[in-house]
C-alpha cells in the first residue's frame, strides 16, 4: 500500500464515491464517517453493481407475504403459517479458513431468519470446489463441511439439503452458500416496523471485538490476491452455543410481544443495523459507543462501528418494555445493552466518551449509495466453445464403462460422506432429509410440509449464463415438484467474478435475465437473495454460479413421493422428451473431457406442465416413485431410483434417431422418471395427457440388475459401490489435511 494513498481509496471507495459523500454531507467526512460509508457503500452492502439488474426480477404473487428488501423473503403456507427463507454466500472467508468461514456463514444466515421473527428450522448448503485430486481442494471441502456441521449441529438447526459440485474455476475460489428456512405465524412476521421515535436500540449477544473489521470491504468486495494473510482479522470464530441462546431469547421476546423490531448484525455491523433501523422508519438515531459491550476496551469508534463480530442482534424496544426485555436476556444468559435510541430528524449521531464522533444522515448510508450500469461484453471465446457440440463427437467406447464413470464422477456420486456429518433430524420436523430430490420439513402439529431444493449447474452457466440460470430455477422447482410439492417462490445467490470486468458483468446480467424469465414462466417470484462478486484470483474467475433455492408446499406430507423404486413389477415411465443434447453434460465432461456446446434448450411451458403433473399425481396418490432427470441424464436418473430403492430395473430406450450414448446421457430438460402404483397406470397416463406431458412406458422395476436393453447391464451392487464409494475414496487420503478442529 502506498503511504500517500488517500484513506478513502484504502477503504475501497472510488474518488467519485468520495466526492458524492462530500456533496451529501456538505463537508469532508471524518475518518469514522468515512469508514461507515466505506462499509455501507461496499459492493457487498450496497449492491451497487447489481441493483439495476436485480430490479428486473419478478417479485410479486399472491403467495408472497414479503419480497426483496427485507432480511429474508416470506411466503404464505396457508392456515396462518408462513415460511421465511434466504440464501447467502460466505465464500471469501471460507477460502481463507474453511471451517470457521463456513461455520460463521451458517450463523449469519440463521440470524437473517431470526430477524424476521421466525424459528430457523432447516439449512441447505450448496457448495462448489475445485477438483478433489488437489489436496488443497480436499482440505477446503472437508473443512467447509466440518464447519457447516460444527455450527449447524451445535445450534440445533438441521441441515437437510444442499449440493456439492466441482469445477476447475473453483480451485482457489470455493463457493460456499448457505440457505436457511424458518417458520413463523404469518401475523407474527417482523418486517422492519416503521416509526418508533424514542424506542431503545438494544444490542444483544456477543461482545464486539476487533475480528471481522472490514469483512465486507476487505473480503467480500474485492478479489483475493496474495494478501490473504492481511485479511486475517476478517476471519472470525463462530460460537454456535451463543447463537442458540440468541435464537431462544429472540423467539421468546417475539412471542411475548416485547419486540418493536429486530435486526441482525451482518455486513457492516452496527453501522448497518442502526442506519437501516432508522432509515426504514425515515428517522434518525443516537448511538452511544460507550454502552457497547467490547471484547477489547481500546477499540476505536470506527472499529466498533464496523466490526462484524458474530452472534449479535439489535432489538428495537419500547422504553416501557426495556426492563422485561433485559430480564429475558438474563434468563438466557445473554448480554444485552441499550446502546441508543431512535430519534426524529433523519440524522445518525454517534458518540464516544461524550463527544459526537460521527454525524451522518441515516438514509445516506443505506439508500443513497452509488448505483452503476457497468459495461457488459460477451466473451469472444464463447462462440468457439459453443460450436463444439459433444453430441456430434464420435463415441465408440464401452457404454458400461461410460455409465460407471458418470455415476462415480464427483458431481453425481453420493454426497453421503458430507451430509452424514450434518444433524438432519434435530427439531423433529424432517420428513425427508439429505440425499433426496428435495428436503421436506413438516409444520409442527399439522400434515402440511415445505419442500425445498437448491440447484445450479456451473457447466451450463459457463456455456450460456442466461440458460444456466433458467435451468437452475427449472431444476430446483422440478426437484420440489418431484416430491409432490407445488413450487411457490425462489431465493438465489449469484456468485460471480469481478463486476468491473465487462465479461463478468455480461455473465451476471444474462444470468439475472434467465433467472427472471424462468421465475415468471414457472410462477415462482423471487423473494430475495444475495450477490457475491469478486470470486476470482489472478485472472481466473468462477464460472457463473447462480444458485437457486425453491420452496414449495405439500398439503399432506403423507402423500410425498420418494425417488427410490418401491417394489418389483411397477411400470416405469419417462416423462418428457429426449433430444440430442449433450452440450455441457456430465457425460461430455467425464467421458469426452469436454465442457462445450450449448446447454439443453429449456421450454418453460413444458417445464411448468411437468411440475403440475408431478404434484397432481402425488396428490392423487398415483405414483410409487418419482425422480427428476438432470445431471447425467436418464441413465443416472434410473440408476439413482434403483440404488435408493434397492430395486433393479429393465428398460428399453427406443428412439432410433439418437445414438445409444445420447439416449442414455442426454440432459434434455423437463423430464422425470416415475413408477405407477400398481393398478394406477391408466391414471398416470391420463393425467399426463391432461397436463400435456409426453409420456413413454420404458420398462419395469425388479431384480438386482440395471438392464438397459441392448445397451448395458450392470449389477445393482456394483453400481452401488461406485456411487457410494467415489467421494470417500477421493477423500480418504485427505482425512487429516490440517488439524481436525477441536
Amino acid at each position: 500500500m502506498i503511504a500517500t494513498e488517500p484513506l478513502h481509496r484504502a477503504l475501497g471507495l472510488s474518488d467519485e464515491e468520495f466526492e458524492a459523500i462530500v456533496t451529501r454531507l456538505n463537508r469532508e467526512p471524518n475518518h469514522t464517517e468515512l469508514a461507515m460509508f466505506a462499509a455501507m457503500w461496499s459492493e457487498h452492502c450496497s449492491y451497487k453493481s447489481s441493483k439495476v439488474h436485480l430490479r428486473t426480477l419478478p417479485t410479486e404473487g399472491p403467495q408472497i407475504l414479503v419480497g426483496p428488501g427485507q432480511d429474508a423473503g416470506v411466503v404464505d403456507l396457508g392456515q396462518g403459517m408462513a415460511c421465511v427463507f434466504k440464501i447467502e454466500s460466505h465464500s471469501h472467508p471460507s477460502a481463507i479458513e474453511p471451517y470457521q468461514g463456513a461455520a460463521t456463514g451458517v450463523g449469519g444466515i440463521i440470524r437473517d431468519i431470526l430477524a424476521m421473527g421466525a424459528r430457523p428450522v432447516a439449512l441447505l448448503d450448496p457448495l462448489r470446489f475445485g477438483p478433489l485430486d488437489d489436496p488443497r481442494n480436499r482440505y477446503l471441502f472437508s473443512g467447509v463441511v466440518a464447519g457447516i456441521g460444527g455450527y449447524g449441529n451445535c445450534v440445533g438447526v438441521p441441515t437437510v439439503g444442499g449440493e456439492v459440485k466441482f469445477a476447475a474455476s473453483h480451485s482457489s475460489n470455493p463457493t460456499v452458500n448457505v440457505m436457511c428456512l424458518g417458520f413463523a405465524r404469518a401475523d407474527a412476521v417482523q418486517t422492519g416496523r416503521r416509526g418508533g421515535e424514542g424506542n431503545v436500540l438494544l444490542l444483544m449477544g456477543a461482545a464486539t471485538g476487533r475480528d471481522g473489521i472490514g469483512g465486507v470491504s476487505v473480503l467480500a468486495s474485492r478479489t483475493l490476491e496474495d494478501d490473504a494473510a492481511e485479511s486475517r482479522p476478517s476471519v472470525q470464530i463462530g460460537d454456535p452455543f451463543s447463537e442458540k441462546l440468541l435464537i431462544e431469547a429472540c423467539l421468546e421476546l417475539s412471542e411475548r410481544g416485547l419486540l418493536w423490531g429486530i435486526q441482525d448484525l451482518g455486513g457492516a455491523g452496527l453501522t448497518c443495523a442502526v442506519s437501516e433501523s432508522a432509515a426504514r422508519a425515515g428517522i434518525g438515531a443516537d448511538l452511544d459507543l460507550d454502552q457497547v459491550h467490547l471484547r477489547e476496551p481500546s477499540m476505536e469508534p470506527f472499529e466498533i462501528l464496523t466490526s462484524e463480530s458474530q452472534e449479535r442482534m439489535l432489538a428495537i424496544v419500547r422504553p416501557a418494555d426495556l426492563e422485561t426485555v433485559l430480564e429475558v436476556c438474563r434468563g438466557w444468559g445473554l448480554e444485552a445493552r441499550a446502546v441508543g435510541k431512535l430519534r426524529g430528524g433523519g440524522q445518525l449521531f454517534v458518540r464516544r466518551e461524550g463527544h459526537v464522533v460521527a454525524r451522518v444522515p441515516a438514509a445516506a448510508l443505506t439508500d443513497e449509495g452509488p448505483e452503476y450500469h457497468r459495461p457488459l461484453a460477451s466473451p469472444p471465446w464463447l462462440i468457439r466453445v459453443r460450436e463444439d457440440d459433444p453430441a456430434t463427437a464420435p463415441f465408440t467406447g464401452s457404454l458400461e464403462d461410460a455409465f460407471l464413470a458418470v455415476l462415480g464422477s464427483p458431481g453425481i456420486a453420493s454426497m453421503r460422506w458430507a451430509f452424514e456429518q450434518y444433524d438432519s433430524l434435530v427439531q423433529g420436523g424432517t420428513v425427508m432429509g439429505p440425499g433426496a430430490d428435495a428436503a421436506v420439513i413438516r409444520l409442527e402439529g399439522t400434515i402440511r410440509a415445505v419442500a425445498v431444493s437448491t440447484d445450479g449447474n456451473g457447466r451450463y452457466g459457463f456455456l450460456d449464463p442466461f440458460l444456466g440460470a433458467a435451468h437452475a430455477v427449472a431444476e430446483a422447482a422440478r426437484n420440489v415438484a418431484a416430491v409432490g410439492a407445488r413450487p411457490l417462490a425462489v431465493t438465489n445467490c449469484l456468485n460471480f467474478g469481478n463486476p468491473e470486468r465487462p465479461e463478468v458483468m455480461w455473465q451476471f446480467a444474462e444470468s439475472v435475465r434467465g433467472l427472471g424469465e424462468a421465475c415468471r414462466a414457472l410462477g415462482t417470484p423471487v423473494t430475495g437473495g444475495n450477490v457475491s462478486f469478486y470470486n476470482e484470483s489472478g485472472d481466473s474467475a468462477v464460472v457463473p454460479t447462480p444458485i437457486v433455492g425453491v420452496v414449495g408446499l405439500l398439503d399432506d406430507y403423507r402423500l410425498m413421493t420418494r425417488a427410490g423404486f418401491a417394489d418389483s413389477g411397477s411400470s416405469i415411465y419417462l416423462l418428457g422428451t429426449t433430444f440430442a443434447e449433450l452440450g455441457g453434460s456430465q457425460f461430455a465432461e467425464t467421458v469426452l473431457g469436454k465442457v462445450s456446446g450449448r446447454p439443453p434448450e429449456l421450454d418453460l411451458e413444458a417445464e411448468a406442465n411437468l411440475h403440475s403433473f408431478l404434484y397432481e399425481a402425488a396428490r392423487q396418490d398415483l405414483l410409487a416413485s418419482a425422480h427428476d432427470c438432470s445431471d447425467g441424464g436418464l441413465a443416472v436418473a434410473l440408476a439413482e431410483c434403483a440404488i435408493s430403492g434397492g430395486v433393479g430395473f429393465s428398460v428399453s430406450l427406443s428412439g432410433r434417431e439418437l445414438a445409444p450414448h445420447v439416449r442414455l446421457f442426454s440432459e434434455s430438460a423437463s423430464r422425470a422418471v416415475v413408477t405407477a402404483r400398481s393398478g394406477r397406470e391408466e391414471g398416470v397416463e391420463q393425467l399426463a395427457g391432461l397436463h400435456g406431458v409426453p409420456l413413454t412406458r420404458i420398462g419395469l422395476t425388479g431384480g438386482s440388475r440395471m438392464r438397459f436393453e441392448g445397451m448395458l447391464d450392470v449389477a445393482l451392487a456394483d453400481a452401488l459401490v461406485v456411487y457410494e464409494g467415489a467421494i470417500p475414496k477421493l477423500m480418504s487420503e485427505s482425512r487429516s489435511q490440517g488439524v481436525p478442529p477441536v
Partner: protein
Amino acid sequence: MRLRFEIVVSLKDGLLDPQGKAIQGALPTLGWENVSDVRVGKHIELVVEAESEAEARSHVEEMSRTFLSNPVIEDFRVLSSEEASAS
C-alpha cells in the same frame, strides 16, 4: 536420537475463544469467582527421531506451522523437549 516435544496451539489474540468464554461463564456459578481470562488451546505431544536436537526442533517448528496449526487464526509455541525413551 528420540526427542519428545510439547507444542501449544492457541487462537490468536483478539479472536473470540468460545471455549474459554463458556468455561469462564460457568466458573462463578461453580464458586470460582476469582478466575478470569480463560483461554483454551490445544496441547500436542509428539516424539521426533532426528540427528540432533536442533534438527528435531526445526522439524517440529515446520510441522507446527504447516500442519498442526492454521496460521490464519492460530499461533503456536514449542514448549519444551526432552529425551524420549525408546517406544
